[in-house]
C-alpha cells in the first residue's frame, strides 16, 4: 500500500483538519464530530441540506458544501457510513427551523444510519425529509434487494436541490425537485484497477493486467462483467447505451452529462470518453445542455470512470445554472 498518510486509522480526522485549514472562511467543523458545515450555518429562512457517507469519495461530500449546495456533510470512516449520532449533530447544527433535507445514497449502511438519525431528529421536533439516490443502472432494480446504488448522479441532486433551497423553497419543494432529479438521472461506471482502504492495507479486489470491470460500484462492489480492456470509444458506448436503455430520452430532449473520474484516471482520458459520449448523444439528436468532466465522486485511487446522464426540463436547467459557491463546484 503506497499512500501519503500518517496513521491509517486517523486518515479521516487528518483530512477534515486539512480541509478546514484550507477553507477556514467557507467551512467549519462541529467540534468533536465528523460533521463539516457551511461557516455561516445555520442559514436562516432556508431549508438545510445534508449529505454524507463514507469517506474516500472526495470531493464528495464536504466539497459540495457552500452557498447554493449543501449546508453540511457528515463524513464516515473510509467507505463506511457515518453513525446516527453524527448525522444527528449535523441536523442540529444546520437546522434553522425551516426543516432539514437529507440526501442519501442507496446503500444499506447509509440508509439505516440516516434513517435512525432522522428518527432522533423527529423525536426533538425537527422537520426532516430525505431522498434516496439510486442512479447506478449496473444494479438490477429489484424490490427484493436493497436495489440500485447511489453514485455520481448524487452530485446533481446536491446541486439542484441546493439551488432550490437557496431560492427559498420549502422542505416539500426541495424534496420534490430532488425526487425529480433522482427520477431523471442514471449513471454507470467501470474500473481498470482497484483501490485500497488505508486501514485494510490491501486492494479491495483484483483485475488482471488486461482486464476491466464494467458496472463497478464506488466501493469496489461487483459490476456486471469482467472482460478484456477495450477502447475508450467502446467503453463510452457501452456505458452510454446501458444508461439510455434504462431511461426514456428522445430526440430534442436536453440532458446534462457528467464524466466522473474514480480517482486515478487522467483527466485526458475523461475527455476522451466525453468525446464519444457526446458523439453518441448528438447522433441521436439528444441535446447536451451542459457537460461536467472531472472528479466528482471518487473511490480513493481506483482507476476508472463513470458516465451520468440527467434528463432536464426548464426547472432543472435553471437550477443547474444557479450560482454555487461550493468549494469543489463553483458555477
Amino acid at each position, binding site marked *: 500500500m503506497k499512500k501519503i498518510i500518517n496513521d491509517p486509522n486517523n486518515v479521516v480526522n487528518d483530512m477534515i483538519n486539512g480541509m478546514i485549514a484550507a477553507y477556514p472562511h467557507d467551512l467549519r467543523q462541529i467540534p468533536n464530530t465528523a460533521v463539516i458545515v457551511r461557516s455561516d450555518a445555520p442559514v436562516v429562512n432556508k431549508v438545510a441540506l445534508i449529505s454524507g457517507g463514507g469517506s474516500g469519495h472526495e470531493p464528495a461530500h464536504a466539497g459540495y458544501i457552500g452557498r447554493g449546495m449543501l449546508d453540511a456533510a457528515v463524513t464516515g470512516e473510509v467507505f463506511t457510513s457515518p453513525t446516527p449520532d453524527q448525522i444527528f449533530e449535523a441536523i442540529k447544527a444546520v437546522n434553522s427551523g425551516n426543516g432539514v433535507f437529507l440526501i442519501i445514497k442507496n446503500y444499506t449502511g447509509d440508509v439505516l444510519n440516516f434513517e435512525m438519525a432522522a428518527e432522533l431528529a423527529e423525536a426533538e421536533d425537527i422537520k426532516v425529509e430525505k431522498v434516496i439516490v439510486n442512479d447506478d443502472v449496473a444494479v438490477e432494480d429489484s424490490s427484493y434487494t436493497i436495489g440500485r446504488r447511489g453514485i455520481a448522479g448524487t452530485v446533481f441532486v446536491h446541486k439542484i436541490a441546493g439551488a432550490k433551497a437557496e431560492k427559498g423553497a420549502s422542505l416539500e419543494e426541495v424534496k420534490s425537485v430532488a425526487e425529480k432529479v433522482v427520477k431523471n438521472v442514471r449513471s454507470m461506471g467501470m474500473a481498470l484497477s482497484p483501490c485500497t482502504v488505508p*486501514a485494510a492495507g490491501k486492494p479491495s479486489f483484483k483485475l488482471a493486467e488486461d482486464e476491466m470491470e464494467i458496472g463497478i460500484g464506488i466501493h469496489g462492489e461487483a459490476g456486471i462483467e469482467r472482460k478484456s480492456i477495450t477502447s475508450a470509444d467502446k467503453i463510452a458506448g457501452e456505458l452510454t447505451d446501458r444508461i439510455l436503455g434504462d431511461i426514456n430520452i428522445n430526440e430534442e430532449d436536453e440532458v446534462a452529462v457528467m464524466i466522473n473520474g474514480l480517482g486515478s484516471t487522467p483527466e485526458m482520458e475523461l475527455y476522451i470518453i466525453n468525446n464519444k459520449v457526446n458523439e453518441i448523444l448528438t447522433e441521436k439528436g439528444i441535446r447536451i445542455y451542459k457537460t461536467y468532466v472531472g472528479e466528482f465522486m471518487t473511490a480513493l485511487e481506483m482507476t476508472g470512470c463513470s458516465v451520468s446522464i440527467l434528463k432536464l426540463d426548464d426547472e432543472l436547467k435553471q437550477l443547474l445554472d444557479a450560482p454555487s459557491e461550493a468549494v469543489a463546484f463553483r458555477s
Partner: protein
Amino acid sequence: MEIKVEDAIKWFEKINEKIKLNKEYLTSLDQVIGDSDHGINMARGFEEVVNKLSAKEYGTVSEVLKDAAMTLMSKVGGASGPLFGTAFLRFSTAVKVKESVDFETFTLGLESALEGVKHRGKSTAGEKTMIDVWSPVVDFFKRENDFQPDELLYESRTAMENTKEIMATKGRASYFKENSIGHIDPGAASSYYIFEALAEVLQEGEK
C-alpha cells in the same frame, strides 16, 4: 446458570478480543463480497464498547447491553453498526426486568435482538447476512432448556459456514449475486465470534 453483570461484561471483552484478533480476516471476507471495512468497523466498535463498560459501574445486565448497543450504534457505522446496535438494544429492553438473566429470559432477549435486526434491515433468514447466524442460534436456544456452550459453539459455527452456500440478496454482497456464493458473509462471521465469546463465558461460568 444465570448471566450476571460480570458475565455480560466479560462477554463483550471476549468479543472484543476475538474481533481484534480476527480483524484482518473479517476485512478480508468483506474484501471479497463487500468494501473491505467490516473488520475495521467491528474492531473500532467493540474496542469502544469495552472502554465504555470498564469506565462505569453496572447494576443490571440490561444496562450493560444498552451501553454496548449505543456505543456500537455510534462507533461502527456502515450497515453492521445500526444492525448490531439495534440487536443489543432490543436485547437490553427484553431483559430489563431482572438484575441477572436466566436462560429463559436470555432466550427472549436473543429472539428480540433477532427481530430487531430483521426489522431494521428489512431482511430475513436466507439472504446471506448476520441473520443467518442469529436465526439458527435463536432456534437452538428455543429448542433447549438451559445454556449449552459446546452445542452453541457448534450451531453458530455451522450457521456461519452455511452462509457460504447462500446467494446474497441484501447488503453490499447482493451486488455480487451468484459470485457471492462460496464465500462466508462477513457479518455472519462476526456474529459467530459473538456467540463463540458467549460460549466461552458460559463454559467458564460452569466451572
